[in-house]
């Protein structure tokens, strides 16, 4: 499908360079011209420079060298609003919508007067205009009087994009916008993105999931170590080729060998209920076992681990860990009982962004590192952190660098290392490999497998069937707040598992 671009050139860059201290984040990036109506996939490993490059296009960072050409004319951005005024908008994974306000109000927030031409608000008029815009851009109908919190993720993305386009956006950048979507939701979003390209909007689509990029993009640009490797037509590229160019080697996903779990029960849950989101859930986990939890978003999968860890309140008959009854009414109690939790919200619930890496690493076991008076053994603290950084391959310029300076994959490896250092009996991992590149993923799989061989139990949620069948021993399927099935996690079972996950779930269309 060699699509011919009727549109004019929209944006290109020449020789963009950017350094942070001694690290060169971008070395001479000449982004090949993107045309109106073109969807460009941008891929690269963590730390390849995608985020920095996008930040430069969005006016958040200023390049040290090089220039940006907009419609062939050289432009400089002094602030994000400069870029926005030209017509560049970034759509992130979260939303920046106000959940308690209506669709129409969100779209025109701050421009109500301009839109309807007077100060006294006329909801009807705003809503009509909003409905018209959504229909114009996407050809779909969303009731503009609905509150944003009542919409599903894809519809929320539609609102975000509509707002951007109604402000005159010509270039849309999707930065990991699909990170928390299920397969079905993604496909709906891709369909809508392709529709958009008919209205001559240029799109840059960034994702760690390469299949996604191959699915949606017309052309693909590959970054490696701050350099642009190539830009080529989607049809000229295959997945293995893409991985090879991204990583410089032909490595794909590689899973560790599965070991056999013990026959003894490590952890069991009886009758766990969370409001009306989880009903009477019971299951058990053996020593050395990795159990995956799958289900569509909103079906209760997210709440299960959080409830066990005591973040959200629950009703429960009983919970046994190593044969003893444990209560976990707060994370504090859970950690005391040797249960550790890895959140899927890395920056909000995982990393101390403003604290140094070493404190982030040791955050779960200061008690072990300090004497009875609470005074920390500095030598042990440092030596342990150094060993962990080496073992878990956390790439940071020093143990003193702030948590925010690490790249996504390295943050995730650090968090896994933090959990492992505390030596709990039970690991609760929420989507442990979400948003990290192939290399880091493989490493994290090996760390998780190693935890199991050391006699620990691992409960992990995942959206990736590949990961579940290759890493886990069993998989729990959750639907409508109930465990509908527990299946052995084998490659042969993949279809069966997926069928269970998707079966008879109502899917709202935007």
């Amino acid at each position, binding site marked *: 499908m060699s699509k011919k671009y009727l549109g004019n050139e929209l944006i290109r860059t020449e020789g963009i360079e950017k350094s942070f201290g001694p690290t060169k984040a971008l070395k001479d990036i000449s982004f090949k011209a993107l045309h109106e109506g073109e969807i460009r996939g941008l891929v690269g490993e963590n730390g390849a420079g995608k985020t920095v490059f996008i930040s430069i296009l969005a006016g958040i960072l200023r390049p040290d060298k090089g220039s940006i050409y907009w419609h062939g004319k050289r432009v400089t951005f002094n602030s994000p609003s400069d870029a926005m005024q030209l017509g560049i908008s970034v759509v992130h994974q979260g939303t920046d919508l106000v959940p308690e306000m209506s669709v129409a109000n969100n779209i025109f927030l701050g421009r109500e007067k301009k839109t309807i031409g007077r100060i006294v608000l006329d909801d009807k008029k705003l809503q009509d205009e909003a409905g018209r815009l959504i229909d114009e851009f996407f050809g779909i109908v969303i009731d503009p009087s609905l509150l944003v919190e009542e919409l599903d993720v894809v519809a929320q993305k539609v609102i975000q994009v509509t707002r951007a386009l109604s402000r005159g956006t010509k270039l849309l950048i999707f930065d990991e916008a699909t990170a928390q979507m299920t397969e079905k939701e993604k496909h709906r979003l891709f369909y809508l993105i392709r529709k958009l390209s008919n209205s001559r909007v240029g799109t840059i689509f960034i994702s760690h999931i390469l299949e996604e990029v191959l699915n949606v993009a017309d052309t693909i640009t590959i970054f490696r170590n701050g350099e642009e490797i190539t830009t080529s037509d989607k049809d000229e590229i295959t997945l293995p080729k893409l991985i090879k160019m991204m990583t410089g080697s032909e490595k794909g996903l590689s899973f560790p060998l599965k070991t056999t779990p013990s026959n003894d029960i490590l952890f069991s849950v009886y009758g766990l209920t969370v409001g009306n989101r989880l009903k009477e859930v019971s299951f058990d986990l053996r020593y050395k076992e990795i159990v995956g939890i799958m289900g569509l978003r909103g079906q209760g999968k997210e709440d299960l681990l959080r409830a066990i860890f005591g973040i959200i309140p629950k009703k429960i008959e009983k919970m046994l860990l190593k044969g003893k009854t444990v209560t976990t009414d707060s994370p504090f109690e859970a*950690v005391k009982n040797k249960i550790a*939790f890895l959140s899927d919200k890395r920056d909000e619930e995982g990393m101390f962004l*403003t604290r140094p890496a070493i404190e982030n690493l040791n955050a*779960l076991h200061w008690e072990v590192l300090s004497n009875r008076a609470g005074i920390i053994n500095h030598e042990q603290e440092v030596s342990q952190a150094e060993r962990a950084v080496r073992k878990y391959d956390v790439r940071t310029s020093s143990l003193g660098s702030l948590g925010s300076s690490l790249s996504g994959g390295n943050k995730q490896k650090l968090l896994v290392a933090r959990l492992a250092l505390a030596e709990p009996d039970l690991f609760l991992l929420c989507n442990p490999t979400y948003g990290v590149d192939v290399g880091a993923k493989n490493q994290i799989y090996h760390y998780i497998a190693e935890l199991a061989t050391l006699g620990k139990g691992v409960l992990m949620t995942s959206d990736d069937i590949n990961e579940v069948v290759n890493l886990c021993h069993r998989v729990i399927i959750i639907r409508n707040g109930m465990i509908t099935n527990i299946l052995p996690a084998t490659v042969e079972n993949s279809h069966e598992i997926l069928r269970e996950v998707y079966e008879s779930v109502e899917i709202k269309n935007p």
Partner: protein
Amino acid sequence: MRFFGRCMKALKSRIPDMRHIRKNRAMTTWSIVFFLFFVEWIIFPESLGAANLQTIFIIAIPLFFATLAQTMVMIVGSIDLSIGALMSLTTCIASYLLVENLALGIATLIVLGAVVGLANGFLVINLKVNPFIATFGMMFALEGAALTIRNYPGGAVPESLLGIVKFQIYSISIYEILILILGAGFFWFFLNKTSSGIHFLATGASRSVAKNCGINVDLVTRKAHLICGLITALFAGLFLTIRFQAGSPLVGEPYLLFSFAASALGATRVSGGDADAGSLLGAVFILTLIENAMNLALIDTKSQWIIEGFLLLVILAAVGSSKKRRSG
């Protein structure tokens, strides 16, 4: 030479990265301190005299402890607006009790500080009142109490306590310097060497992350308010009483803004999660020297307030914008 260089390189690579050696953190602050002192000395040569050096420390000590108290709650991500009022109340009570019975007086201050600190913690954590509102209400209650006890300045301080600040060897106030160094030293040790200190910082850096790390963030916040109350009453209030040799129901008021400004100027992260003992001490001296210079210039108290208020806003704005630039 080359050999030497290689040795240094080898040596450096062997030194582990240590988180607490963040060099030059307090350097800027202390450079400003010495610069200010130099300027003051040129304009008012008498500022190096024994009497003025003593004055500087008498001003600095209550301010230091007020700042330390404020910083304790700021690092966990809270704030205390009742510090100034508690200091006033302390001076009112202390100026009665200390001359009667020193031990009873001190014990009363400890109880007062603990009660106010526990109450603030209870309001913020158990009743979930926003710390701004909770401690603002506490401020009014304490001011009322202070006015009930003393309607106008009065009372006295025992000679033994005055001796602490008056004692000088070669015009150097040994005790006061010792108190400041001990205070700052304890704070440094707490932040860098104790697990409770790390728990405080973690709670302020991100409550939800700290929770997931098994830190009892509610307990930590209550502890911070308790410590804040104790430091305020027992140290900041007591030394303020000594400074004025009397009790007064409004004397502590300016310390609310001062404590906040000195803390922010002293590298404390306003939203919580970071502080530095050396910078904090330096910031206290910056404010002290400004006040001292205005006293030497014979500026009256009301004008001083206007100038100080304005200066503090400038300082805070400068701190704010420099942070923005660094992060952007």
